[in-house]
């Protein structure tokens, strides 16, 4: 199958999502955000739908400091997972959300039910979702809703690992519900096969006085995109997203985000540090809309890029659309190379250029890692960036 010319009537499971997909249409290479992402090729590649190849999940060494949920080739594996009593799982009748992101509807169209993970209490250990893949030339749509009960706090890690993902396209939907007075801290760690494509469609639903914090670290995949749509329509709801995108060779990665403030005292903050080597390309396409009724809100956007080679490129478009005067807002984008004096200083103490460069990059990345509140998650992220 190719997605662009697919006859969805054959296997579509959610007619509502399919209808919305048809209405919006697929992005094309003329769509500004996707210009660098060769989206036409992604959609016109020939894929098999899903992959039923078995992955030996049991061989994965679990860390006792974390609860673990395995998702193998897009299928949740409860047999090998280790979840506490306060986490329950239910499949519910499909409720496709409003979204202008056609890639969200693309995955939804192939999914019959909503898979919802309920976190009903404070988690004493972080939950690690281990997404494992072993597939070739496959299209793997997966959807998971995570619902955090009011007043609770949880740390959730989405770890993307693969045995093989040759020429495969993984299209993930993650819908988060942070109920009133809750705090959901989410960390995505991605280091997939360089022949793979990963698109993560995020929809955080944040209730009154609730907070959703996200940190994403994208190191792998040939193409990786985080597409986030946030609607802040409840007072004192807060969204933040920090990211590290470190690429080399011909990798492409980016963030496309839209944050819409509709209620008073709502906060959004999105920042990303891009470390781009060789001929890699990154995208920071972020839009904040603060409606007239969203007085006393705060919205911030910042893209920081280090270009290690002349062939690397960043396309940063932070945008603010403000319909009220009573707010705090800022947006910015900086692009540069590594500080020559810092590099020289390290080298003058006998550390060769390659290692000195690595040390300075790690130092930049650490600024993001240090924002992770939970020590265990922070250590995991640190090990992840250090390879």
């Amino acid at each position, binding site marked *: 199958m190719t997605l662009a010319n697919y006859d969805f009537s054959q296997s579509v499971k959610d007619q509502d999502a399919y209808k919305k997909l048809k209405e919006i249409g697929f992005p094309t290479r003329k769509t500004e955000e996707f210009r660098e992402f060769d989206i036409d090729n992604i959609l016109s590649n020939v894929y098999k739908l899903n992959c039923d190849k078995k992955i030996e999940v049991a061989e994965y060494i679990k860390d006792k400091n974390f609860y673990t949920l395995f998702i193998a080739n897009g299928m949740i594996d409860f047999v090998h997972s280790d979840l506490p009593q306060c986490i329950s799982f239910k499949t519910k009748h499909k409720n496709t959300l409003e979204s202008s992101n056609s890639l969200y509807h693309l995955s939804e169209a192939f999914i019959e039910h909503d898979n919802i993970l309920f976190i009903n209490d404070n988690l004493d250990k972080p939950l690690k979702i281990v997404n494992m893949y072993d597939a070739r030339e496959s299209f793997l749509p997966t959807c998971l809703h995570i619902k955090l009960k009011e007043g609770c706090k949880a740390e959730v890690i989405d770890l993307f690992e693969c045995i093989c993902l040759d020429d495969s396209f993984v299209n993930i939907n993650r819908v988060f519900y942070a109920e009133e007075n809750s705090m959901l801290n989410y960390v995505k760690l991605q280091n997939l096969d360089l022949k793979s494509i990963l698109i993560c469609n995020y929809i955080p639903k944040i209730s009154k006085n609730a907070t959703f914090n996200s940190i994403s670290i994208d190191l792998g995949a040939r193409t990786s995109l985080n597409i986030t749509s946030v609607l802040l329509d409840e007072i004192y709801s807060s969204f933040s997203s920090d990211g590290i995108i470190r690429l080399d060779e011909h990798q492409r990665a980016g963030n496309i985000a839209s944050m819409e403030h509709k209620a008073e005292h709502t906060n959004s903050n999105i920042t990303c540090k891009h470390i781009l080597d060789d001929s890699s390309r990154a995208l920071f396409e972020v839009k904040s809309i603060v409606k007239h009724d969203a007085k006393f809100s705060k919205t911030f956007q910042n893209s920081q890029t280090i270009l290690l080679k002349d062939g690397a490129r960043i396309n940063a478009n932070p945008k603010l659309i403000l319909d009220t005067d009573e707010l705090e807002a800022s947006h910015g984008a900086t692009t540069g190379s590594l500080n020559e004096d810092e590099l*020289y200083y*390290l080298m*003058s103490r006998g550390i060769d250029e390659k290692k000195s460069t690595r040390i300075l990059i790690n130092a930049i990345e650490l600024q993001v890692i240090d924002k992770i509140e939970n020590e265990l998650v922070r250590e995991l992220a640190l090990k992840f960036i250090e390879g």
Partner: protein
Amino acid sequence: MLKIKNLSVQIKDKIVLKGLDLDIKPGEIHALMGSNGAGKSTLVKALSGHYDCKVTDGEMIYKDKNLQELSVSDRANEGIFMSFQNPTEIPGVNNMYFLKTALNEKRAYHKLGEINIAEFLKFVKGKAKEFNVGDKMLKRNVNEGFSGGEKKKNELLQMLVLEPDLLLLDEIDSGLDVDAIKAIANGVNSLLDGKRSVLMITHYDRLLELIKPDFVHVLHDGKIVKSGDYSLALEIDEKGFEGLGINHDIS
């Protein structure tokens, strides 16, 4: 140890060193004096391989190796240590990690195994205590938020850990109080075993009293115009460069 012949160095469009000659033998202490802009810092930067310095003529031979053929890090691992006049702050890089990495890089260069962490901690903390370098400095990021004195102490600590053969001290005394100068001088002197050599830049006699030079050179307009022993430094202190007939105007 170091033989500089007819060295000319350009920074951007300006020729700063114009045919400089200098010979430093093992165990010798040389002091380099001169008015601002004479080219003193350029000389030590050129020796350590600073990216701004372009050698347009002459050569720098160190331990029978042409320095221009060595990278910045190789020069350091061969035993050249430049103490910076204004040490660079490196946010996010832990000082202890930096010191351990630098030491292990040097050991690897000389085909020695990595020092184990316990041994390293004992070694560094011992040096820090001996020369009154605060323990807290080790836990902070490299020079980040350090006072001027702390930065110079950090340079000293690196010197003590890396045990270089040729110490290039670029105004290591600037901005320090009397006690701090003494502490730095004690540290440098502790390294001087009759084999290690020093080339130090200073404007003040105070440091030279504590680290007695065998030779004092006056650099003017990119060349050494006068050399002598410690008494030359005293003469400069008394009469100034103009008193020695060295005109301040630099072409």
